[in-house]
């Protein structure tokens, strides 16, 4: 992959993460409850983990946190997002490594669930130190359950997205081969 292509790929993925994060605001899951959301931005990280390498996924996560923080929230929001992002990416990479080639059909969904749950754990741990801890304790079980459900949904989305992408990735290669032949 050339440097230009790599830059373009990162640009597209980061902007896609931004757009997905923004679009999510219009999908009301639990009105007014911070943290309970679909987490479609995670599909981008799942793409990076499965289609690129670990290093790229870390870079993409940092880019996503920075850009989303600048455009959609502020420094405080960025801190939450960074804690969630770091923890979720670490969990996802670890689970993917542990799973290896086992469970090829639902592997990505399991990885996604771990990502979502650990994202919420990261955010809760920041909240635990910044707002009233009693309120955070009340808030913890529903947030983890929501992470579980949303993780499955995001994982399913990512699974079919990746399948489609792989299909389109293969197609131009075949087309290129044809004129040469």
């Amino acid at each position: 992959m050339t440097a230009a292509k790599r830059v373009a790929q990162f640009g597209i993925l980061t902007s896609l993460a931004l757009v997905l994060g923004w679009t999510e605001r219009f999908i009301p899951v639990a009105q007014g409850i911070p943290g309970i959301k679909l987490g479609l931005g995670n599909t981008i990280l799942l793409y990076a983990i499965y289609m690129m390498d670990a290093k790229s996924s870390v870079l993409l996560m940092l880019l996503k946190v920075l850009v989303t923080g600048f455009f959609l929230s502020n420094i405080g929001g960025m801190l939450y997002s960074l804690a969630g992002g770091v923890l979720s990416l670490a969990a996802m990479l670890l689970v993917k490594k542990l799973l290896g080639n086992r469970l090829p059909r639902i592997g990505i969904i399991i990885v996604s669930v771990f990502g979502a749950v650990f994202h919420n754990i990261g955010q809760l741990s920041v909240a635990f130190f910044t707002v009233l801890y009693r309120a955070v304790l009340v808030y913890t079980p529903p947030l983890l359950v929501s992470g579980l459900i949303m993780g499955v949904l995001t994982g399913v989305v990512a699974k079919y997205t990746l399948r489609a992408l792989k299909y389109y990735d293969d197609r131009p290669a075949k087309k290129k081969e044809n004129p040469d032949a």
Partner: protein
Amino acid sequence: MRGIRITVCIVCIAFMLLPLSGCGQDNAIPTAAPASSEPAATTGPAPETAEPPATPSEAADAPATEELASSPESTKRMPFILPTVLPDEVAIYIGNALYTVVPFDTPDVIIVDQGDGRVNEITLDGEKVYMSHSTCEGQDCTQQEPITPENYQDRLVLLNYILCLPNQVTVEYIPEREE
């Protein structure tokens, strides 16, 4: 054999002492009740007994007589300590530090200005408490359902709390409780 005998003896003694100790408790209640009921009636249920003289003059005699009938029972049930009932309150926190505590049933608007542009406005209208205004970006806190004495146990996700994460402001509804 000897060990068994000793244990049987201990169990028998224990069974003999059990009703005795129970009797002791039963006896204690009536003896202590008259002594404690009089001073307690003046201090403990003062806010409740203050109302009946006002209500019969307006209309209802029946509730007043009911209360009079029920009040000796309640003193019998709680012979030693009559718990004072604390009214429901609203506590506001910035981070983990308490900012203020206000009574729930007095209408009020509390403005929490942290001096760095972060301002939250909490409204109490006597029946519910809610975040009426916030300078935070997400505005999640203003969309959270108002807390009432009826819904605080099964309110969506946050129960008796209103959370503004960006401004680090928490509103806690403290229900009516016994001291």
